[in-house]
Structure formats: C-alpha cells, structure tokens
C-alpha cells in the first residue's frame, strides 16, 4: 500500500464545518428538561421517591445475595447453638449466663454477650466493607455513577442500607435467641444484674433495648467499614481491614496499661449494652455509648464522603 502525504494541516479547516453542522443540528430537538427544579416541592418529593427506589434496590441486592444470606444464617444459628449447649451442659446457675437454664429470655442477653465482640461485627463488616469497594471491583460503580446515581446520594443510600442490615442482623439474633429460649427453657420474670426482678413484658422491652443499642454500635462499625471501603477497589481488602481493626481494638482494650485509650475505642462501648440489664437502666453509660457511636458515624461518614466524592473511578 502506498503512503499518503501529510494530512494534519489539511484538517484544520474543520472548524467552520463543525460550527455549521452544530448550527444545523440545533433547534428542532430542543427538549424541555425536567420541569421541576430540585427546589420545588414536587421535585423534592420525586427526589425522595427515587431515593427510596434506589434504597430498595440496594436492600434487595443485599438480602438476595447468597453470601449475605449465609451470614444471616450464621447469625440465626449461633444463639441456637448456645441454647443447645447450655441445655446439654445442664446446670451451672451460678452466673448470669447460667441463668439461661432457668429462664429462656436470658438467652437473648447471653447471645449478644457472645456475639457482639466478633460475630456481629463480622457480618456487618462484610456488608459495609463490600458496599463501595465491591461495586468498584465489579465495575458496576461506574455504571451506577453514570446512571447517574450521584456520588453523595449513592454513598448516603449505601450507608442507609448498611444501617438496615445492622438492625436486621441484631433483630435476627434477638428473635432467634428468643425462639430458642422459648422452646428449650422455661420462661418467666427476668432477674437483672442488679439483683432485682422484672416481669416478662418488661424483660421483652429490655431485649428490644439491647438489640437497638447493639444495632447502633454495629451502625457505627458500618460507618467505619464504609470509609475503608471508599479507600480501595477490592472488597476483600476493605472487609479484612475492618475486621483486623475490630480485633486489634479489642486486644488493646484488654491491655491494662493502655486503659487511657479505651474510651476512644469503638469496641469498648459495644459492651455497654449491659446497661439495659441494670436497675435502674444505666442511661448515662448507654447514652454516652450512643454519643460515641454518633461521633464515629459523623467522622467516618465525612471521611467516606470526602474520599468518595473526590475519587477517580478508574475501575
């Protein structure tokens, strides 16, 4: 094949032609953009509806994903295993957990006592750590953003989804423990840590309180995991980092010489759920725990936001 001469300069005439063609194509297709501005009430309502739709899509994805279902399965099974173990071991009513044998309701508290340090954080860490990094890894993040989901909006809805999962996980633990307790053990008024006894109905209320507090603690962990998730493109990395932090924090917590930093660790406040088992309820301790959770959510949430809204999506 023969070679052609230099062409570059020849092309610089294109300007005029382009200006022409754009003039031709303009006009007739002038389309009215979305009639409602974001400020108008109708626009705001539509915005909320669209947000709910995307959140539902997120939740649907989370709760249909086989891996997450397996995690929820584990959360449901652990209380059952604890219950069966206590049933098989027989007595041992010399401690709080030992009371389970005498009162099935106590199994719920025992379940949270056992699961809050690691099992629940594992489940929440997986879902939250995966939330952004997983989409980036699959490449779906670029299509969500060009849909366009909007970066701030997507991040907010991702976090809302994490919170929903945290609440569902804690509720699942509570319900599973409750059902196991009802089936395997007698049920009656509950003895609190303070030695006083409350009726069954109030016991159920306290279970709700414990589950909500635990969910708040898990939501704070979710914010941390979400922030980590925006830093990487591999969900395994984000999940592993989150879980390593959880474990390291609990190791630090166990070192007496480091007692100074304990109040700043997220993990040390999870244990505060036992405030619901005192008489009167230790509102000061639990309130402070909730404040710490809120602080973690605000700080981690803003870090996630700053990172996610300024990051290049190259995956």
């Amino acid at each position, binding site marked *: 094949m023969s070679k052609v001469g230099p062409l570059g300069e020849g092309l610089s005439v294109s300007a005029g032609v382009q200006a022409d063609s754009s003039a031709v194509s303009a006009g007739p297709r002038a389309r009215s953009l979305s009639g409602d501005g974001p400020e108008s009430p109708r626009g705001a309502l539509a915005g909320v509806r669209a947000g709910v739709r995307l959140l539902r899509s997120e939740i649907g994805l989370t709760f249909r994903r086989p891996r997450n279902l397996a995690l929820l399965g584990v959360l449901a099974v652990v209380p059952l295993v604890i219950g069966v173990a206590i049933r098989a071991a027989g007595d041992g009513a010399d401690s709080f957990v030992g009371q389970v044998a005498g009162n099935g309701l106590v199994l719920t508290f025992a379940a949270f006592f056992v699961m809050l340090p690691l099992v629940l954080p594992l489940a929440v860490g997986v879902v939250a750590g995966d939330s952004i990094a997983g989409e980036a890894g699959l490449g779906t993040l670029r299509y969500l953003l060009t849909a366009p989901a909007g970066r701030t909006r997507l991040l907010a809805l991702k976090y809302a989804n994490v919170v929903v999962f945290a609440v569902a996980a804690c509720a699942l633990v509570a319900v599973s423990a409750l059902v196991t307790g009802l089936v395997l053990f007698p049920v009656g008024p509950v003895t609190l840590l303070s030695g006083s006894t409350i009726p069954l109905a109030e016991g159920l209320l306290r279970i709700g309180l414990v589950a909500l507090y635990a969910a708040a603690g898990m939501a704070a962990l979710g914010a941390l995991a979400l922030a980590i998730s925006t830093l990487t493109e591999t969900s395994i990395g984000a999940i592993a980092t989150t879980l390593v932090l959880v474990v390291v924090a609990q190791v630090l917590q166990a070192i007496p010489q480091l007692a100074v930093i304990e109040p700043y660790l997220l993990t040390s406040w999870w244990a505060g759920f036992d405030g619901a088992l005192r008489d009167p309820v230790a509102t*000061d301790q639990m309130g402070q725990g909730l404040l710490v959770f809120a602080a973690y959510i605000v700080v981690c949430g*803003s870090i996630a*936001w700053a990172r996610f809204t300024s990051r290049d999506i190259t995956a």
Partner: protein
Amino acid sequence: MPKRARAVRWGVPIAAIAVVAGAVGAGPVIAAVQGDPVLPERTAQQLLADVGTRWKSGELPPMSGTIIETASLGVPGLSALTGEATGPVALLAGSHQVKIWYGSDSQIRLALPSHMSEHDLIVNGDQTWWWDSAANTATRIKTPPMPSEPALPPAVITPQEAAERALAAADHDTAVSVGNDATVAGRAAYELVLAPRAATSLVKDIRVAIDGETLIPLRVQVYAKGAAEPAFEVGFDSVTFSRPAPENFEFTPPAGAKVQDGEMPALDQDRAALREHAEDGELKTVGSGWTSVVVLPFATADLAEGEKQGHGPGLAVGAMADGVLKAAEPVSGAWGNGRLIRTKLVSALLTDDGRLIAGAVTPEVLYEAAGRK
C-alpha cells in the same frame, strides 16, 4: 480547581474531627472559659466550722450520683489487676465507677458495675444485703454497721468519709488553707487544701472539694510530691440532690440465687485480721501524723499460702503481691537488709527479718523505723 475542590472536601472530615475533639474536651474547655466559680469567701476555719456543724446534724441530704475513683499509685504490677479482678479488690488500681443512692442513713445503695456483672450493697432499715451477680449470691450481712464505723466497705470510700479522715488528720503538723474554688460534677465547690508540714512526707497535699451550697464533700484528691496528676482521687462525676426512688433500696433475693448469711466480704475480713494483729501487739505504728509508719510481721511465705487458699480476692491479692515483689529493689543499711518498694505515694520496706514497714514517707523514715527494733 480540582485541587482546591479536593482540599475543601477534606475540610469537612477535618472539621468533624475537630467538632468531636471539641465535644470530648468540652468539659475542661467550658470550665476554662467560665473560669473558677465564685463562691462567698470563707476562710479555712470558717469552712471547717461550717462543715463541722453541718455534719453534727448527722443527716446528709438525700442524693444520688456516680462516683469515680481513680488510683494511679504507681505501684508496679498492680495495674495487672484491673483486667482480672472484679468487685471491691479491683478498686485498688485503675479507674472505677460506683453508683450511689442515698435516702438517709438507713437507706443506702451502692452499685459497682462491671461488664455483665454487678455488685450491690443495699442498706434498707435494719436489713443489709450484699449482692454479687456473677456468683448469683445474695449475702445477708449479719453485723449491722456500727455507728462508729462507716457502713461501706472500706475500699469504697465516699467523699464524706474521706473528708472526715482528712480533716481528722488536720492538727499542728498540717497547713490548712482554702484554695481556688473548683467545679465538681458541675457544681461550684470550695477547695480545702491540707498540706503536711513534714518534709519527709511523700504527700504534697490533700484537696477536698466541698460543695458550696450543701457543704457536702464532692471530691478528695491526694497529690504526691512532684506529680501534676493526683495519685488518688475519688469524687462525684454526677450528683443530684433529690430523694432517690424507694425501689432503689428494696432488695429481695431473686429466685434461684444462693442466699447466705455472712460478714462483709473480703476487706472486712482483712480488717478483722488487722485488728487481731494489733491486739496481739504485732502491729504497731511508729511516728505520728503524716510521717507515721506501720510495722507488722510479714513473711513472703504468707503470700504463697494466701494464694493456695485460692478464693477470689485472696488470689488477686497474691497475684498483686507477686508483681509488687518482683519490682522490689534490694537495700541494706545499719538496720539490716531488705527490699524496698517505692511508689509515688507510698514506700514499703520488707526486711529480711520478717517485718513490713510502710508509710507515705521517704525511705529514710522507714530505715529509721527499722533501726528502732
């Protein structure tokens, strides 16, 4: 433009961290902004007199609150205790919380919360209960609290008791003054400063914060010489002067709990043992006031025995002593040979001839006491 936009973005989390840090430090900051509270002037004498008359009436106003006790005595090996022990023994190290409900002298409840367990002392009329949730055991205390002795386990020192002790020590060898007014548990308080005159004392001063309104002691701090932070501090973190709900003082052993009759656990037994020692003439004090030291027969072998007995507090004490002994420094002098344990606030000398000499004094005072056989 993108670089600037990015910088602005990251300003948000930085601001969030600043806000949180501000909220964490808000207590001190607000206090600093408000400055010291201003209370009507009272000299040390007036204050002591007012407090004295106040206490003579006997009754404290009903109240409830949270007391935080922090001990950083600098005892080597002691900190290892915090992780393991629960209940009263754990109060010897680290920071602890005690909740108090006070209705009257015959209606008192103290709660020592720890993770998933709680110890409670409930005094209601002629009944006194000690509840240990971890052991699921309720103990009916037989001996009703003697009027001369406080009803509380000694380790749980209320501000009232501590102030009483501090004021009792105020005689000719103490400089008593009123310091700057302080804020404790959000309340304006006088601060009574008791400083030992003896140079050989390790105590710099003891500060007692006395509520400006009710004249109730709210906080006691013990400062060692050369330390900016108190070596020991007990004070209200929050307090409300209103009558606690009566159900706080009701205690019925829960179904399924072990119910037993007994003495105050652990520390009362120790105290009884101490009293025995004193009666046998084995325990003596040398010197007086701030520089007094305790001398008692002591052999390291005793510790091992205590460990073998193996019940809760004994074990913890044994473990603690082990740690302490490891950090001891061998010393010798005209008085003989021994091992010296120094902390910020207390020195202790274990002589090889089997005596334990201890006090809030410099080692020289201990050596002198050791020489006086």
